[in-house]
């Protein structure tokens, strides 16, 4: 049987439209470029005597408008393909795009719900709500949420297992039918098969889960460490600051990849160094929360004790499981290789976070509300954690988004070098690496994870941009 086409039954109608949209976009782009060189200004906003606004349009504006509508037309076509994929019965009619659109159905539903709720209540949602005023922020949020939801619904979205091998499907092109599918099994490999005969589409989907399991958590840990050390360094200054800054610079000067190679060297793993590092680094979140609650509630010992007891209990349990792999209940554990990835990511990211936090603290500690805290006798940790940190959240949230992006790329790089995660893992970096060898003959196994990684990092950057832009505005 021939593989199914990309666009299915809607293709003959929509393909020319999409081509036209692309052509108009390119034309508009060049027209605008030429007009700009020729010195044609964009139209001015004019104020009418009755205090209404109108725009006097120039050719330049028409070129821009044409580009805008071309993009909208293109997106509309994609949307029609997806809807077509959902409503049409057979795979041939759906086409690859339609079929993928249908598989992502849970993601679309969740996405529509999230956007509808957020836009409705955006005035009440603080900074998050303001994101929906910024087109860039919304695009970024969409891309990030897309992969988040994909990771969550991976089981529903994927057509096959991440490591199911069907040897006849080796290097088959996108849309190829399975040789003899079992009852209820999906009939095609939507994005083709890789060199071992695994489904590229499903591996990409499961890869999202793999990547998003590690990157945000590792970044969060790096933030805890960076914040817990950066606050006192900036606040107290002096010797403590000098020493901590020196150490941070030392770590930053260390080549990351070399560090990873060192950490995965069997001798070093055997010596337990990664575990000890984890033991130290993973202690920071617990310290962080204990200080946080103590400084806030020490005037109400009962409340304080409850908070601290809960922190130590839950934190300690997670700590034993994650760092020492000795959860008494046997629920929490982390495979050794993931632990190493985790430790390294935290280790290389926390110095940068440290420096950012320290810088913000140096600025905020001169504010009068900090002095007011001091003059009523607040302890230094209350001031750092409750007076300074909440007001540093803007830049920190932005950096958090960017840093998840870096970490995702870092994980990709690690996977690419075959470090860290297990060789079977569907994470994007490893998949790109495997596809690389036959890239010139069979590009299809390497491209989907590469595009996924790209859009995800792009989304995080746009999201950070949107947040930054909106947090400056008021």
């Amino acid at each position, binding site marked *: 049987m021939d593989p199914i086409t990309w666009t299915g039954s809607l293709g003959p109608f929509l393909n020319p439209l999409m081509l036209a949209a692309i052509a108009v976009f390119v034309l508009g782009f060049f027209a605008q470029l030429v007009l700009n060189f020729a010195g044609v200004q964009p139209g001015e906003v004019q104020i009418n005597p009755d*205090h209404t606004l109108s725009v006097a349009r120039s050719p330049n504006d028409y070129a821009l408008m044409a580009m805008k509508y071309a993009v909208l037309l293109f997106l509309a076509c994609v949307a029609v393909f997806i809807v077509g994929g959902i409503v049409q019965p057979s795979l041939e009619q759906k086409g690859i795009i339609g079929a993928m659109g249908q598989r992502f159905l849970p993601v679309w539903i969740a996405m529509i719900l999230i956007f509808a709720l957020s836009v409705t209540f955006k005035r009440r949602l603080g900074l998050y709500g303001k994101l929906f005023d910024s087109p860039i922020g919304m695009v970024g949020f969409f891309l990030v949420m897309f992969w988040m939801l994909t990771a969550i619904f991976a089981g529903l979205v994927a057509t096959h297992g991440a490591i199911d091998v069907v040897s006849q499907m080796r290097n088959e092109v996108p849309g190829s039918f399975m040789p003899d599918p079992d009852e209820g099994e999906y009939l095609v490999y939507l994005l083709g098969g890789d060199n071992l005969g695994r489904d590229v589409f499903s591996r990409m989907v499961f890869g999202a889960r793999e990547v998003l399991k590690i990157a945000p958590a590792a970044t969060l840990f790096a933030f805890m460490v960076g914040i817990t050390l950066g606050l006192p360094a900036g606040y107290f200054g002096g010797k403590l600051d000098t020493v901590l800054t020196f150490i941070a610079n030392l770590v930053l000067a260390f080549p990351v990849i070399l560090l990873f190679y060192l950490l995965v060297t069997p001798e070093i793993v055997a010596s337990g160094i990664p575990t000890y590092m984890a033991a130290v680094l993973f202690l920071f979140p617990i310290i962080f929360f204990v200080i946080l609650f103590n400084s806030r509630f020490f*005037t109400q010992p009962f409340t304080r004790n409850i908070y601290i007891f809960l922190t130590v209990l839950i934190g300690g349990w997670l700590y034993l499981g994650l760092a020492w792999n000795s959860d008494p209940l046997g629920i929490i554990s982390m495979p050794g290789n993931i632990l190493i990835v985790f430790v390294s990511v935290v280790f290389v990211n926390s110095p940068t976070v440290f420096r950012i936090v320290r810088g913000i603290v140096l600025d905020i500690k001169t504010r009068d509300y900090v*002095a007011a805290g001091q003059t*009523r*006798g607040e*302890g230094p940790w209350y001031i750092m954690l409750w007076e300074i940190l*909440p007001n540093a959240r803007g830049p920190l949230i932005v950096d958090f988004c960017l840093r998840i992006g870096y970490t995702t790329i870092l994980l990709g790089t690690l996977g690419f070098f075959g470090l860290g995660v297990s060789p079977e893992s569907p994470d994007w970096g490893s998949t790109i690496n495997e596809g690389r060898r036959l890239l010139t003959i069979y590009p299809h196994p390497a491209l989907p994870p590469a595009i996924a990684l790209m859009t995800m990092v792009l989304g995080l950057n746009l999201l950070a941009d949107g947040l930054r832009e909106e947090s400056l505005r008021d």
Partner: protein
Amino acid sequence: MAEDTAYDGPILEIDKLSISFFTRLREIPAVMDFSANVMPGEALGLVGESGCGKSTVALGVMQDLGVNGKIVGGTIKFKGRDLSEMSPEELRDIRGSQIAMIYQEPMASLNPAMKIGKQLAEVPVIHEGISEEEAMKRARQVVEDVKLPDPDRILKAYPHQLSGGQQQRIVIAMALMSKPSLLILDEPTTALDVTVEAAIVELVKDLGKKYGTSMLFISHNLGLVLETCDRICVMYSGEAVERGSIEDVFDEMKHPYTQALFRSIPLPGADKNASPLIAIPGNFPLPHERPNGCNFGPRCDYFEAGRCDAGPISMAQVEGNDRHATRCLRFQEIDWSAPPTLADKKEKGVIGDTVLKVDNLKKYYEVAANSMFGGADKKVVKANETISFEARESETLAIVGESGCGKSTLAKVLMGLETATEGQVMLDNLSIESTEIQDRDTRTVSSIQMVFQNPFDTLNPSMTVGRQIIRALEIFKIGNTEAERRVRMLELLDLVKLPREFADRMPRQLSGGQKQRVGIARAFAGGARIVVADEPVSALDVSVQAAVTDLLMEIQRNEKTTLLFISHDLSIVRYLSDRVMVMYLGHVVELGSTDQVFSPPYHPYTEALLSAVPIADTSVEKKHIVLEGDIPSAMNPPSGCPFQTRCRWKSEVPGNLCETEVPPQRKMAAGHEIKCHLADDILAQMDPVIKIAAE
């Protein structure tokens, strides 16, 4: 340029100007129906509260309103030519060479990476195409004109190597490089100390005369406008409400807002108990919430329903005066000479026992030349030198002096944020000078509290107002349960006259004055007995200042608080304090009751300080004493008397005593001390600085 010199009409004619800003939500009309003329050589003052549109007018004249600002009506003519009809090239040329603007923040106009000389020379090189050499010569000339010492050194310096006052002089020099016909000054001295301000104002006036430059002087300080300008225009909420010559507007004001403004500032002779300041009730309307009819209506004592809120009101000429106009419908009916209806006269609090006694306090900071490998050469900054004073219950002790004189350091030592190097601080009978705040007991901490200067950062922006007060109550161990503390918090809001709903608001939803009130409530949370108020009203608008000051006074009367009022605004100090302490470079140079300090004999520094304060009263005559140079660095203080580098009386002291010996603290009268070598007979010859002309 021949046609320009021939022109003798008004330099600037603004006619029915309206400017709006367009945001995503709405159009914000920032200036409406604004008209003004500036004649050659004339200085026009533009006064009004922050946000009333003063700077927008200035930017409109510069045709620099940014992307979302638009002139929606009226015209601005410069030397008879409509600015909106000029091409961008012409505009750029006019802006560089004929209209110059000076902003509040000098560094905003200076390039930090370029030497002063180069920056100055750039102007004529670009606009007039003269040679670099000639431009440099002219730069040196203007640097001399703005009275900067050692012009050659200054030309080679970078902006950050100069003090704030020197930077502002350079900005003025830069504006003068192109010999403009119109100079726009937007709050040029707000960021500077009074004595520096006085010198800059003097300079601007002289230069205006010398070059015949017309000026548009924007300020919120009526006194400054009186000193610098020929004519004045008062703005309120986007409109000009009154304009005329200085004498007409100051002495025969014809608009209720102008009157209210004058009644809310302390003038010499005013007494806080007999004639308290009258704050303007209510708040400034936001641009999109302006009332129908008169903008000032809701706050006006003379408001007449059905008439004042009927429709737009235009400017009306006041007969008999030169170009005097007002935007009030009832100005002919109002009895302008009627004295204000006074709020009930306040009883002066009885001054009680000494609660705070500071004796020979010294605070030295050691600054290492190299912080990483400290040790080798350490420098000592003497922030406070042998300070002694007492403060009693219910008393207001004002501490005045320029920035860097050690006022804040003294406050820090009192609060326990720093420990004294030497000497004693006694709270009741407890010596606290070397007890850091962590080691003080709750009662001591809650007894001495502070109100801060900057309303925009006195409150934590991410915590509700109520939460912040409750936190103070928690720390001061007041109330046993959360509910009790909440009740107490609401009572504190009542105390500072804020609505109880404010408890759940975030600080950014409050105006500057309201935030300052929350700051006061927080300071009184633990029943403070001594409150150190560090310039609590200097960042507020005049009409709000009066209300906040009165609130502080009222709480003081009820709670018998000792108030240490740190300020550089001598008018307000004179109005509200019982005793005054003048500081210079860490020394107390004069200490005495308000009357003693404000009348001769003075310490030479007090004399200069008093003469620097702008006073908004045409009947006041002031002696002009301009202090030369800047305040010396505390790192490297002069030998002998700390004030000897700028003192005009130094020659009256025989020998070089002033340069070699620190003068002793001398008792002039009961409770009046001066730190100066001047002989008694010379001190006795001093004239009063401020004289109220006999009518």
